[in-house]
């Protein structure tokens, strides 16, 4: 066998390997409620850098969703195992069945609803923009024309930028450059450094940011219609969805959820039981 042939064969074998692996592993399945009860635990995934929904303070997870997880631990008839990881892996983990549910502020979108089921909304989170404190060049939506915007990659905020684009175009302007970040802390930092002109996130996240750093950031106007974050479950896992919606309904009725909303978001919301996204 010539050297050239040998190299080519090695390459072909190397190429074939991932494909073979794909075939061998096949598609994934999430655990049904019955399976969760039988094995005695549910795996919950949360984020670690999405203040005020979920973040880590002094090495301990805290925020709205983490306190809801605490409430879930008390009421669920099985153990709750929590995994904390960055946004990047969360929805993929739920879709592959690695986690039974993502207890994070996943905004309900049309695209995500194709592969995931969403619980009842946990907050009212219309998208707003935040700008640098004292930036007098931005006073209204029309002023955002041509300005650079920072937003999280793979986020619903990014997915709904066309809405903002339409708003800017209606005002006779044109959407500027979009910069995507792995997570929001980097986006805020770049805004503070002046590399972007504004950042789009939910009003809840931005209020929390501005409350903490009033000298650096200033809240702007809404850039989307209604938007609701909810928890995500693998598509078709209906019993688990019903179980979680019952849990949310109970927390609304017994006052836990409104109290936590006031604590973390500054206000309690009237929320629909289910939401069908337009975008």
């Amino acid at each position: 066998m010539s050297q050239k042939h040998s190299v080519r064969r090695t390459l072909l074998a190397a190429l074939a390997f991932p494909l073979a692996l794909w075939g061998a592993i096949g598609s994934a399945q999430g655990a049904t409620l019955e399976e969760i009860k039988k094995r005695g635990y549910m795996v919950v995934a949360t984020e670690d850098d999405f203040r005020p929904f979920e973040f880590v303070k002094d090495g301990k997870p805290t925020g709205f969703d983490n306190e809801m997880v605490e409430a879930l631990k008390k009421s669920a008839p099985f153990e709750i195992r929590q995994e904390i990881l960055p946004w990047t892996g969360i929805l993929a983990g739920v879709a592959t069945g690695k986690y039974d549910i993502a207890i994070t502020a996943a905004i309900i979108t049309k695209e995500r609803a194709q592969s995931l089921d969403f619980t009842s909304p946990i907050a009212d989170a219309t998208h707003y923009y935040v700008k640098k404190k004292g930036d007098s060049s931005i006073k209204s939506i029309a002023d955002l024309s041509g300005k650079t915007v920072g937003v999280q990659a793979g986020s619903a905020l990014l997915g709904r930028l066309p809405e903002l684009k339409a708003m800017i175009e209606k005002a006779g302007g044109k959407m500027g450059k979009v910069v995507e970040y792995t997570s929001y802390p980097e986006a805020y930092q770049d805004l503070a450094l002046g590399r972007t002109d504004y950042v789009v996130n939910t009003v809840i996240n931005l209020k929390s940011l501005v409350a903490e750093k009033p000298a650096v950031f200033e809240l702007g106007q809404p850039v989307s219609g209604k938007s609701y974050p909810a928890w995500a479950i693998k598509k078709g896992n209906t019993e688990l969805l019903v179980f979680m919606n019952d849990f949310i309904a109970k927390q609304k009725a017994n006052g836990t959820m409104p109290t936590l909303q006031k604590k973390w978001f500054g206000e309690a919301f009237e929320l629909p039981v289910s939401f069908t996204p337009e975008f």
Partner: protein
Amino acid sequence: MSSADVLAIFGGALTTLLLSAAGIAAGLPIGLGMALVRWGRVPVAARGVAIYVSLLRATPLVTLVLLLFFALPNAGIPVGPISAGVLALTLNTAAFNCEIWRAALMDFPKEQIEAAQSVGMRRGLRFRRIVLPQIARVSLPGLINEMSLLIKVTPVLAVVGVVDITRAAVRIGAETYEPLPPFFVALAIYLAIVFALVSVQRWVERRQLQRAAAA
């Protein structure tokens, strides 16, 4: 940034150190074993190693760890963030270590082996007494280089939930909205770790020189 925050970064440093140490401890001998398989032209296995090395050198670590973390459970193998991380680091570094060891082996003078054979040394003894000490010396700079790369590539494992130095720093920045101070602490720790590694290399090299001078 509170003292608890600094402590959290040091907690991350422990994870980084443990993961790197595990990856190095497993990857170093596996790499050597694979290099020997190729060097000795073991039928079938040598081809397998060649395929493995080209595959792993072409796979970004982040892709590898995501694949292991999400795919293995579906194949019936339960794997947590730490075990997926160690596995990914080991698989990755073993491929690079294999090539470093192999380069040293290819350069190894055949006459020495023939000489050892002529005095009746068996294969195992030949390898321990003649080959290994010499290829270890030649490979050391390359291996230490690969180790320092491995330490600095551990933040990639954060995608599956491993909290290393960098992730601990990111978390603090997300809580305080002040990302720079934790990054400075993180950088200082990385510097200390890699400096310690390089010091070990210097120490080993100096000892070898002294031995050579004494001989």
